[in-house]
C-alpha cells in the first residue's frame, strides 16, 4: 500500500550537465567493473538487502502508526469551550483536582514512566512475594498467607512444568504433576467403585469368566459418570467428589480380573472421559484471582514464534486481490491484471521518470 503523500505540482526537469540525481539504493555491485572481490560484492548485496528490508520495515511500522491516528491532522488541539452554565451549586475545585485537570501529559508520558519503573518487565514474572496488600494483617492471617505463598510457589512451579510439557494442542494425557496424579488415581478409583456397585447386581449370578463384558460395562458406565462430572463442573457446582474407598474397589477388581491390572492404566487405552483434568483446589483459584495486574506492556499478546507463524499473505496494492507479481523496483505487489499493473507503473515511487 503506497504511502499517501502530497507531491509538489511542478516537475521541472532541467536538461543540462549530463548527470542527474537518482535515489540511493546502496552500492550497485554490477556497475563496478572488475570487482573480483566476491566477498565485497556479497557484502554489498547483503547490505542492499538489509537496507531495503529496513526500509520496508520502516514503511510497515509507519503504516501501523498511521492506523493508530485519531485525526487526519496531527497536533490539532480542541480547547474546552467556555461554558456559561452555573457550576452546580457553586462547586469549588480542590487544588488537587485543579492540578490533575491541568496535566498536559499524554499517554506516551505515562507509558514511559511505567517502563522506567519496571525495567525489562516485558514478560510476566511469577510473584515471589506478594506486594503489600492492604492494611496490616493480623498474625493469623499472616501465617495463613505465608503457607499460601509456599503453596503458591510449589503449585506455580508444578504448573509451569506441566504447562511446558502439555500445551492445549498436544494430546498427551500422561499425568505429569505430583499434585494431579493422586487425584486422578482417586477419581478413577471412585468411578470404578461406583460402576462396580451398579454392575455388581448383574454379575452376582454370572461367573467371573464373564469379566470382559463387565469391564466393558464398567468402561461405558465410567463414560457416563465422567460426562455428568464434566457438566456438573461446568455449571459451577464444583466440589471435587470425595474419594471413596479406593483400596476396597481395587481389591475387588483384582480378585475378579483375569489379566494384569496394569493394562487398565495403559496410556494407549485412555480416552478423554476417563481422563478429565482435575479441578484445581480452591486455594489455587483464590491465588489466581487475587494476583496483581500485569503492567501495560506485559499484558500485550506476544507474537508467535518464528516457525509457528503462517507465511504472510500478499495482496495487490491496487485492487485488493491476491498479489501475484512483485514490482522489481519498489517491491510492491500487484495482481495479474493489466490495468492494475499500468496504474502501479504510473505511481511507482522508484520509477526513473526521464
Amino acid at each position: 500500500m503506497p504511502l499517501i503523500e502530497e507531491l509538489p505540482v511542478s516537475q521541472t526537469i532541467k536538461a543540462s550537465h549530463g548527470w542527474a540525481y537518482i535515489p540511493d539504493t546502496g552500492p550497485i555491485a554490477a556497475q563496478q567493473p572488475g570487482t573480483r572481490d566476491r566477498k565485497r560484492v556479497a557484502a554489498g548485496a547483503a547490505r542492499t538487502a538489509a537496507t531495503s528490508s529496513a526500509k520496508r520495515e520502516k514503511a510497515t511500522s509507519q503504516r501501523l502508526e498511521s492506523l493508530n491516528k485519531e485525526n487526519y491532522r496531527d497536533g490539532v488541539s480542541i480547547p474546552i469551550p467556555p461554558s456559561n452554565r452555573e457550576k452546580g451549586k457553586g462547586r469549588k475545585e480542590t487544588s488537587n483536582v485543579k492540578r490533575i485537570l491541568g496535566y498536559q501529559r499524554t499517554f506516551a508520558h505515562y507509558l514511559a514512566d511505567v517502563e522506567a519503573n519496571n525495567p525489562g518487565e516485558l514478560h510476566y514474572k511469577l510473584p515471589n512475594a506478594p506486594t503489600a496488600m492492604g492494611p496490616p494483617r493480623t498474625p493469623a492471617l499472616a501465617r495463613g498467607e505465608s503457607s499460601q505463598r509456599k503453596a503458591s510457589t510449589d503449585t506455580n512451579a508444578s504448573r509451569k512444568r506441566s504447562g511446558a510439557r502439555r500445551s492445549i494442542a498436544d494430546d498427551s494425557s500422561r499425568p505429569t504433576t505430583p499434585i494431579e496424579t493422586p487425584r486422578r488415581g482417586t477419581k478413577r478409583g471412585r468411578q470404578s467403585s461406583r460402576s462396580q456397585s451398579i454392575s455388581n447386581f448383574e454379575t452376582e449370578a454370572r461367573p467371573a469368566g464373564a469379566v470382559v463384558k463387565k469391564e466393558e460395562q464398567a468402561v461405558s458406565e465410567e463414560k457416563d459418570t465422567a460426562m455428568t462430572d464434566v457438566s456438573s463442573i461446568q455449571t459451577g457446582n464444583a466440589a471435587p467428589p470425595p474419594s471413596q474407598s479406593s483400596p476396597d474397589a481395587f481389591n475387588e477388581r483384582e480378585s475378579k480380573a483375569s489379566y494384569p491390572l496394569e493394562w487398565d492404566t495403559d496410556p494407549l487405552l485412555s480416552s478423554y472421559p476417563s481422563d478429565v483434568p482435575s479441578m484445581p483446589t480452591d486455594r489455587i483459584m483464590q491465588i489466581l484471582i487475587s494476583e496483581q495486574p500485569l503492567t501495560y506492556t506485559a499484558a500485550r499478546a506476544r507474537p508467535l514464534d518464528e516457525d509457528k507463524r503462517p507465511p504472510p499473505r500478499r495482496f495487490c496494492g491496487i485492487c485488493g486481490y491476491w498479489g501475484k507479481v512483485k514490482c522489481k523496483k519498489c517491491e510492491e505487489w500487484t495482481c495479474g491484471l493489466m490495468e492494475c499493473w499500468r496504474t502501479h507503473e504510473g505511481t511507482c515511487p522508484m520509477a526513473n521518470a526521464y
Partner: protein
Amino acid sequence: MARTQRQNNSAALSVPQNTFVLDNGAYTIKAGFAPNELLSDNESLKSCETIPNCLVRSKERKTYVAAQSNELSQWSEAVFRRPIENGQLVNWEAEKEIWDHAFFDQSTAHRNTFISTPSETTLLLTESSNVMPALQRNTDEVIMEEWGFRGYMRTTGSSLNAYNHLRALFDTAITPDAQPSSTKLPADCLLVVDSGYSCTTITPCFQGRPIQRAIRRLDFGGKHLTNYLKEIVSVRHFDLHQDMKIVNDLKEDISFVSIDFKRDLEQAWKGSRRSNKPVQIIPDAMDLGEDESAKDTRIDYVLPDGVNLTRGYARPYDPSREIANRRKLAAAQNIDEIVMTLGNERFVVPEIMFNPADIGSKQPGLADAVVQSLSKLPPLIQATMIANVLVVGGTAKIPGFVSRLQDELRTRIRTEWPVQVRRMDDPVTSTWLGGARLASSHQEVMQKMVVTREQYHEYGSAWLARQFASVR
C-alpha cells in the same frame, strides 16, 4: 485492624441503593441508574444511555461536547478529541467537561443520566484492564474530590459481564437443575473477549473476578479498522482522509467477516468477472445451490454530503448505474449523488483482526491470542473457559465475527473440548447490563467492594487503589 474497622463502617453506613453504572468506553459512554430490582434485560436496558465520549470540532470551528454531536450534520473535516487513549483515561480536562455536560447539568443531561445529588449516589465505574497505576490514582482522586459521591467502586469492565444472564446463550441442556432466570451467583467461568474501539482484550473471569495473569491485549480495535478502510477507499475510490466519522458509518454499514476468505476474495476479483468465467466452486456435498455461487459481495454506497443527505447508506449493486454515470460524465453533467462500488473492502478490513500479518503487523491474530491467554490457566479451567466465550464491544457487531472466531478456535483446540462463542443481543451495552445486574441483585458483593467518601478522606487514594485491586 483497619480492615475490621472498615467492615464495621460499611455495616453502619449502608451503601446507598441508588447506584449509577458508568461504563466509560473510548468511543461511547454507556450510563444509567441501575434498576432497584432484577428486571428482564430489555427493561433494564431502557435506563441505559449511550453518549459519545469525545469533543468534536466541525469544519466551521464550532465545538460540540458529547451528546451535542448529534446535532452536527456536516461531518466532513471534523476533528475529535478523546479523553481515553488506548483504552486508558489520560485527559481529565476533557472527560470532566463531558461528564459535567452529560450527567450533572440539568439543562443538557438526558433524563436517565442526570445525577441530581451525587452525595446520595454510589458510582460504579468501569475501566479497561491493565491501566497504569498513575492514571488510576488520578481517576480516583478526581472522582472523590470533585463530585463527592457517597460510594464509589472501580472495576474492570470485562468481569462485570459475568453477572449477565448467560444461561440462555450457553446452556446445552445438560444441567438438570437449570433455574429459569435469576441465578444468584455470577457465572463461574467466563472468557470475555472485549473488542472495542482502541484494542481487544481477552479476560478469563472466575466467579466474576478476572484472572490477572491470563489477560492479554491485542492492539487492534474499531479505530484501526476504520483507519484501514479509510486508506483503502481513499486510494481506490474517493479521498475520505478527512472524514473519519463518515468512514466509521461506512464501516458499520457494509463490513462483514467472511467465513471462507479465499472464496470471497475470488468472488470479488475483477478479473473473473471480466472474462465472464464462472467462479470456480468445487462441487461437494455441502454445495448450497446456485445462489451461493452467484452471491455477489459488491454493494453501492452513497456518501453523505451534509446538505441533502446527512448519513450515507448502502444499496445493492447496480451495474447499469456505472454505464449511465460514464455517459453523464462524458456529457459533463452534474452527478447529484456520490456513489462508489465496494467489493472486497467489505471483508478484507475486518480480516486484519484475525490475521494482522496481512497488514504487516507482528501481533498474533485474535484466535492465537485467545490460545495464549488460555495457556496460562489450569487445564480444567481452560476447558471450561473455552466453552464459555462471550464477545462484547462494538466490533462484535460485525456480522460473522462470532462464527469466524468460533471456527478459528475450533481448529486450535483439541477436539474433546467443546467450543462455544456467543454474544449478547447488543454487545455494546452488555457490560453496562452486567454492572446493573450486579448493583441491583448482588448487594453483598457491592457492600464488600464499594468505598465510601469518608473512607477515602480518612485513608487516602493509595489505600483506595489497594482495596480495588485485592480480593475481599
